[in-house]
């Protein structure tokens, strides 16, 4: 299979070939709505100044802030009941209706002396822009996960910026009258609706499984109280909200300070040659600054941000703005140089838009998914006006000390950024854990995780179900009661089953025998009683035993003795001085129970340094089954974690190579042999690839490189790309960067050509079928060995008979049986 070379778009924008169409669709959408909304906003601002005047601006600002509170409430409710697609279309439709209304008023000249018209136009422009911003990001979030949002979101925010900047060109041209401007805005909003519908027809969203049904009631989850409780229960969400609030405070305070500095600077150094006095100089200067910052924003957003965030991580990007502001405000306090106000200007007009907005979009992925869109609406529609209002109030009190106020807030922002950095990984794990299904959690564990009041409630409900006439319900309730592991509950439990059928009693006893009460005196006494009353029960209790003893105490002791036989044998091995038994013991552990494996771990760990060479050999031997290598790794970790990590840094890259090998050949071998049906072989190779990835994550967990490797391993196999992307994010934050760089292409949701390109880039070999089969024959995975022999047999490749006989002679019953069936044919 020929892997195509990287195209220009891929090189520049890091957009993969199969993402180009969708990225262009979303980028154009960003341009379209931003152009439409900014037209409405900026024209309305200009006309407001003309027809009402700057003196009325404070009133307009107050109305805007109050209006945004109302809009935030409506949006929060809407995100509970409707999809982001429906909300987006509704907002655009409402915008069109309002502008049509304004147009009609204009046609009948009803606006000329009505200042309310210009207020309404201005407020409408602001509200529409703010709400459409929220709608846009919420909408495109349905189609992206964390990993591709890192690459693509800065591109989208740049096109939003281009759309907004286009308004400036249109306004500069001066050919639009008010009526034609309204019509242009309506047309653009209408085009946006059509474009959104076009996108939803051809682009498939990533699992958005949390949407409510239309018409759904469910009052409990809809309440504002529930939202507040959910936010308070998530420290990371609170941090993100606090960070944004602080940013809004700093935005106004910094703007105030640099505007004051600019005004002072130009008042003190007039240049009459420029004409028009200091206002013209200031305007010219600001114009140049805005142009420079706009250009750098565009360049940074299109080409730099995605590269930086993938190289440095979001937690480093969070530090940029607070560090710049601390530097600016510190310098500002001691010097009157223009450098520091310029840095402040650059932050407000530059980094806050390009870096912090993009950071916010990425950080939202670590907020609990049920809160995500509501938090965005809350922050953008509610916290922003509150932040601006608060900073206006603060400035009125601390006007003279505003630089120190700014410095203090910048230090707070840096502290918050550090805390977010610390909490980010925990938040990712929390999300993964919430989304994970805890198959291995026992009833006891479920009960332990409940609040005490919920435990009491559960107990009451179980007692009710125990009184049920339905024996299935009684038995299920008995499992719950036994989960409390309280022996005081046993008498009542037995009482409820006194009149139950024989099969129900048998099932109850089986449930008890699975738990900790299997040798409790009360249980033994009850089994004796029931056995005497009902001979079939008596038979069941002793049916596995050849003895006819009815004393259950003796029988139970004998059962215990037989189950402990292997354990006692393992303990006996510890007395042997020669550690050479370690290797065969661990190789045999594939057949051991978890308790036996735990005993082996403890026993060999006590041997300390003597055991290390044998364990290291096993760990590095790829022909040994993964479970044995994992066990060896766990034991090394118990003896010495640094030794384990040191060896892993050499071992894991070779396992990563194996994973690449399996992946590459799974996708290329069929095309090399088009006449053969190698479907099963490809499936096996893909399974091998997943097995090796599993092993890598498990061994990283053993070495403490990752937390909760079981959760990560399961979540990586999730059908939901958003969950898989969170796993990759979690691994990026915890695993050694060198190992992660090798691992990432394998586990990331990137086109398979990229993964294969990564394999070939490391000068790895591309094998033909014969060589592949020979390699699989020597694999540690039994399925590989079986398939290799089967393929050699089917294709009658040289040496097939010898390999079949070799497998037939194997001590492993599965291999022997497999070879035997093939030989029979």
């Amino acid at each position, binding site marked *: 299979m020929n892997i195509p070379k990287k195209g220009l778009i891929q090189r520049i924008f890091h957009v993969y070939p199969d993402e180009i169409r969708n990225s262009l669709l979303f980028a154009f959408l960003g341009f379209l709505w931003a152009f439409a909304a900014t037209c409405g906003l900026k024209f309305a601002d200009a006309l407001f100044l003309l027809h009402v005047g700057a003196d009325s601006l404070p009133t307009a600002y107050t109305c805007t802030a109050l209006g945004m509170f109302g809009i935030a409430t409506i949006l929060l409710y809407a995100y509970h009941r409707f999809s982001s697609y429906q909300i987006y279309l509704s907002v655009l439709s409402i915008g069109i209706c309002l502008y049509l209304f304004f147009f009609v008023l204009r046609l009948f000249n009803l606006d000329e002396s009505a200042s309310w018209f210009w207020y309404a136009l201005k407020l409408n422009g602001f509200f529409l822009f703010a709400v459409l911003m929220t709608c846009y990001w919420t909408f495109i979030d349905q189609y992206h996960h964390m990993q591709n949002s890192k690459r693509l979101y800065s591109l989208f925010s740049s096109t939003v910026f281009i759309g907004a900047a286009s308004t400036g060109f249109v306004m500069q041209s001066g050919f639009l009258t008010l009526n034609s401007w309204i019509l242009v805005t309506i047309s653009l909003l209408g085009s946006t609706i059509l474009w959104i519908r076009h996108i939803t027809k051809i682009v498939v969203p990533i*699992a958005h499984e949390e949407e409510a*049904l239309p*018409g759904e009631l469910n009052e409990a989850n809809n309440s504002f109280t529930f939202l507040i409780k959910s936010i308070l229960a998530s420290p990371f969400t609170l941090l993100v909200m606090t960070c944004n609030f602080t940013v809004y405070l700093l935005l106004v305070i910094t703007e105030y300070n640099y505007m004051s500095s600019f005004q002072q600077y130009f008042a003190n150094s007039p240049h009459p040659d420029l004409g028009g006095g200091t206002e013209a100089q200031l305007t010219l200067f600001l114009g140049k600054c805005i142009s420079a910052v706009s250009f750098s924003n565009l360049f940074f957003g299109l080409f730099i941000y995605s590269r930086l965030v993938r190289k440095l991580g979001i937690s480093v990007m969070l530090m940029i703005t607070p560090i710049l502001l601390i530097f600016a405000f510190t310098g500002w306090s001691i010097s009157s140089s223009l450098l520091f106000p310029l840095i402040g200007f650059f932050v407000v007009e530059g980094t806050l838009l390009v870096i912090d907005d993009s950071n916010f979009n990425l950080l939202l992925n670590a907020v609990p998914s049920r809160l995500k869109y509501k938090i965005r609406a809350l922050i953008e529609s509610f916290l922003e006006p509150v932040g601006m209002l608060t900073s206006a109030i603060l400035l009125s009190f601390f006007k003279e000390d505003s630089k120190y106020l700014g410095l203090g807030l910048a230090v707070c922002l840096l502290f918050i950024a550090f805390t977010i950095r610390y909490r980010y990984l925990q938040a990712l794990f929390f999300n993964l854990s919430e989304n994970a299904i805890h198959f291995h959690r026992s*009833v006891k564990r479920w009960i332990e995780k409940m609040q005490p009041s919920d435990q009491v409630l559960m107990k009451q409900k179980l007692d009710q179900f125990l009184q049920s006439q339905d024996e299935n319900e009684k038995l*299920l309730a008995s499992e719950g009661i036994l*989960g409390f592991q309280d022996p005081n509950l046993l008498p009542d439990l037995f009482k409820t089953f006194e009149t139950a059928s024989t099969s129900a009693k048998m099932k109850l006893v089986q449930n008890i025998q699975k738990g900790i009460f299997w040798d409790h005196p009360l249980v033994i006494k009850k089994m004796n009683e029931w056995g005497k009353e009902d001979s079939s029960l008596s038979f069941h209790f002793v049916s596995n035993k050849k003895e006819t003893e009815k004393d259950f105490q003796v029988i139970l002791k004998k059962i215990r003795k037989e189950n402990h036989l292997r354990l006692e044998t393992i303990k006996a091995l510890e007395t042997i001085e020669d550690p050479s038994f370690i290797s065969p013991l661990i190789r045999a552990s594939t057949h051991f129970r978890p308790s036996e494996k735990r005993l082996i771990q403890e026993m060999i760990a006590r041997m300390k340094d003597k055991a290390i060479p044998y364990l290291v050999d096993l760990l590095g031997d790829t022909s040994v089954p993964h479970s044995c290598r994992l066990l060896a790794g766990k034991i090394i970790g118990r003896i010495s974690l640094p030794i384990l990590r040191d060896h892993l840094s050499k071992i894991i890259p070779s396992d990563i190579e194996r994973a690449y090998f399996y992946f590459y050949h799974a996708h290329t071998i069929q095309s090399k042999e088009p006449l053969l049906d190698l479907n099963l072989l490809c499936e096996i190779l893909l399974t091998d690839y997943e097995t090796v990835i599993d092993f890598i994550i498990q061994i990283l967990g053993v070495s403490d490189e990752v937390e909760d490797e079981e959760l990560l391993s*399961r979540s990586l196999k999730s*059908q939901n790309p958003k969950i898989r992307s969170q796993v990759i994010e979690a691994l990026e934050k915890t695993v050694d960067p060198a190992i992660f760089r090798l691992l990432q292409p394998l586990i990331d949701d990137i086109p398979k050509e990229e993964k294969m390109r990564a394999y070939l880039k490391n000068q790895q070999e591309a094998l033909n079928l014969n060589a592949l089969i020979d390699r699989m024959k020597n694999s540690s995975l039994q399925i590989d060995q079986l398939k290799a022999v089967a393929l050699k047999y089917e294709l009658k490749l040289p040496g097939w008979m010898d390999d079949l006989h070799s497998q037939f002679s194997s001590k492993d019953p599965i291999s022997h049986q497999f070879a035997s069936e093939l030989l029979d044919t």
Partner: protein
Amino acid sequence: MNNLDLIDKAFFLKKTPIFNTLDLDLLLTIADKLHLHTLEGHSTIFTPGESGNRLYFVLSGNVEILSCASAPLATVAPYGFFGQESLFNNLPRSYTSITRERTDLLSLTRTNLYSIISECPSVAVAFLSELHRKVDCVF
């Protein structure tokens, strides 16, 4: 039905044909992933052509299944389920489901259903049994 907790959902699942062979620990695990929906009568749950990513169990009330031509096909009573076809065949919904009266539904997402089936293959067998039972009824 706002006070439905984990144990109630687990006991409900035990009475459904799909999960009735599972023990309490697994039922609690699955119950943890169920989402409760409450709808008034004559509310549409989904219509043909919509993408489907949830399976629904009827907790209380009744749900009517209608064909594309609005002909009644079936009624789903409590402990019954519907909506699983789109989860398995990845096609849009092929029928309409409407509540006859105020109805409580418990839903399971495709992602979670697949995870449950991979962990408990008996659930897949139970789906097949139900499918064959329905086919037998038709014949």
